[in-house]
């Protein structure tokens, strides 16, 4: 599969975007660990969609705006990058931390997002359980905690942790800059979500040791008409551990909501 490398120049720095496929566009926002290329989930989805996967500003190959201090502003920059690519309104899939970014993008720029899909999203204060504090774990152990088994972790990140440490660590530094305190939630977000008027799918992995179920429940209850799905036998990093299961879930939802056949979004590709 050929993957396009797109560099979007914003006044705040360059945003690196990987894109492939044709059809209606789906923007995929990655987890706090990083994007790590155009992975198996992206490839599966790109068979049915135009998949656009930016490295969030400050992460991976994208430039770091050193002034950035919070996630709503990160979402704003992500929105500007989509504008620059003439993408939108568009379906957005947010994974974990990327789910928080997607939700902020939707509530602050409702005209940019017409489908919101969130998997094990951070961004709200759990009513039961806690969002695992990554800053207490070694970077590699935090990533491992996102899988249901060490084997699943090693399949996703082959060749030993040392190969990925610098990237995990530098991405963690960016997360430190924007989500250290309060850790991984925005108290205003559940209130703002109530005014969303887009089809939404909230999902949660039953083996998630990073984000508790109550976060997903808060999103489901706050977004009017949101559907809720649980993914069995997979962890927080389900896009790495069980990419087919995530892809099937996403495609089923986009099919059911008519997005896969929506001609209007094809123009964005």
């Amino acid at each position, binding site marked *: 599969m050929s993957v396009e490398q797109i560099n979007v120049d914003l006044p705040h720095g360059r945003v690196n975007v990987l894109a492939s496929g044709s059809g209606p566009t789906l923007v995929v926002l990655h987890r706090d660990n990083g994007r790590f290329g155009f992975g198996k989930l992206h490839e599966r989805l790109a068979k049915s969609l135009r998949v656009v996967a930016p490295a969030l500003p400050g992460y991976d190959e994208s430039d770091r705006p050193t002034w950035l201090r919070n996630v709503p502003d990160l979402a704003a920059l992500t929105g500007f990058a989509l504008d620059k690519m003439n993408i939108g309104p568009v379906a957005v899939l947010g994974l974990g931390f990327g789910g928080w970014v997607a939700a902020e993008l939707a509530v602050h720029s409702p005209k940019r997002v017409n489908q919101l899909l969130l998997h094990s999203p951070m961004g709200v204060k759990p009513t039961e359980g806690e969002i695992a504090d990554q800053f*207490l774990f070694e970077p590699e152990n935090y990533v491992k905690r996102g899988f249901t088994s060490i084997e699943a972790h090693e399949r996703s990140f082959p060749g030993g942790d040392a190969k990925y440490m610098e990237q995990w660590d530098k991405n*963690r530094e960016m*997360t*430190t800059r924007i989500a*250290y*305190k309060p850790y991984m939630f925005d108290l205003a977000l559940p209130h703002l979500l109530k005014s969303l008027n887009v089809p939404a799918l909230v999902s949660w992995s039953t083996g998630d040791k990073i984000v508790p179920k109550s976060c997903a429940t808060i999103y489901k209850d706050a977004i009017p008409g949101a559907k809720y799905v649980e993914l069995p036998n997979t962890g927080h990093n389900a896009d790495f551990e069980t990419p087919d299961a995530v892809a099937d879930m996403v495609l089923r939802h986009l099919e059911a909501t008519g997005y896969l056949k929506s001609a209007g979004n094809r123009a964005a590709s």
Partner: protein
Amino acid sequence: MFVSYFTEQPYSPLTQDKADQHYPWDHPARRLGDNVLLHSNRFVDPNELAKIYADHIAEYQLADELGFDGIMLNEHHNACYCTQARISIMSTVVAAKTKNTKIVQLGNPLPLWENPVQLAEDTSMIDLISGGRLVAGIVRGGGPEQLSNNVNPAFNRDRFQEAHDLLLHAWTVPGPTRWEGEHYQVRVVNPWAKPLQQPHPRVWVPGIASKETVEFAARHAYPYVCLNTTLEDTKRIWGLYDKVAKETGFEAGPQHRGYLMRCHVADTEEKALRQAREFMWLAGQFTGYGSPAWLAPSGYSSWEARQGRLNLEKTQNSFESQVANGTIIAGTPDQVTKKIRWWLENTRPGMLMLWVYDGRLDRRLGMESLNLFGKEVLPAVHAMGKELGLHDPFQINAPVSWDYASGKKKVAA
């Protein structure tokens, strides 16, 4: 020569096995042997801790009576190796319980303060209560301190710089004023607690490795105190300090150089060496054992600098090798005096902080060692300082900073 007494105030009833086990209640991020941050405070017996504080306060009084020029105090959090969690509180106690000795804070962890004007108030009150005996040292605070206090490590250096500027402002600029900074915003800066020492208490900066912090100290002409560094590292630090001092416009001297030395004395060499082994308590990691993610959190410094620091942490030096390289000194008063002389001749500091004992050593033996040191070694060190021309800032009435030395700022009439 300024000679100061220091102890970490460890929670000495903690046995090694209690640090080296996993427990059912452990946080999933705690690794075997980690003894900072997530090491459970279930091990603390408040009655024991009350006794530890009382014993150390008695030591500070004895050190004052013995003629130590200063008592060095510090603070750490969530740590068994240092039970002193509030430097201001112990400083206040020392101010009230002693008569002559300086209170040397090494140091106040600036970035941990959400409102540094409160630190200006604390330090001013201590200075007033002590009759102008405060040295208000400043530090960035280590990684575990950022996590313990939930302060963002990515902005640690920026907060250190801005908190320093605000502290100086609150001490010296007549109020009411307003502070609108990047990390600190204070509607009204107008503390009525103002320092007794004018223009402000002396500021000393302790550290172990950070190039930026050495440069910061030298640009301000603040004394830099090397925390038990090796001879090579100590010389490297002074070399950098001297270079920046020259660029700034002054010649650095002994009054800008401090050194923290682990130094135990007893009536026999064998006893001193046996007791000094307690410096290796918890494997001699005087900043505790912890996960690299705590000791050097992402953002605390650059990725490259943190790799260097972590490699340093991994370096395990045996007791014997530390005795051999002089980072631990132990012996009879005569032996110790000779070794101190060797350090003084080779590094020429004006301030010596003596870490007299540590670990699980019985406090009665600790007092015995302190007593012996005060009576037999301290006078010799003072005499050596004089002989070698190792003057401290008080002896030569050095300006408190380059701002005042250069005339950029003037002491109010």
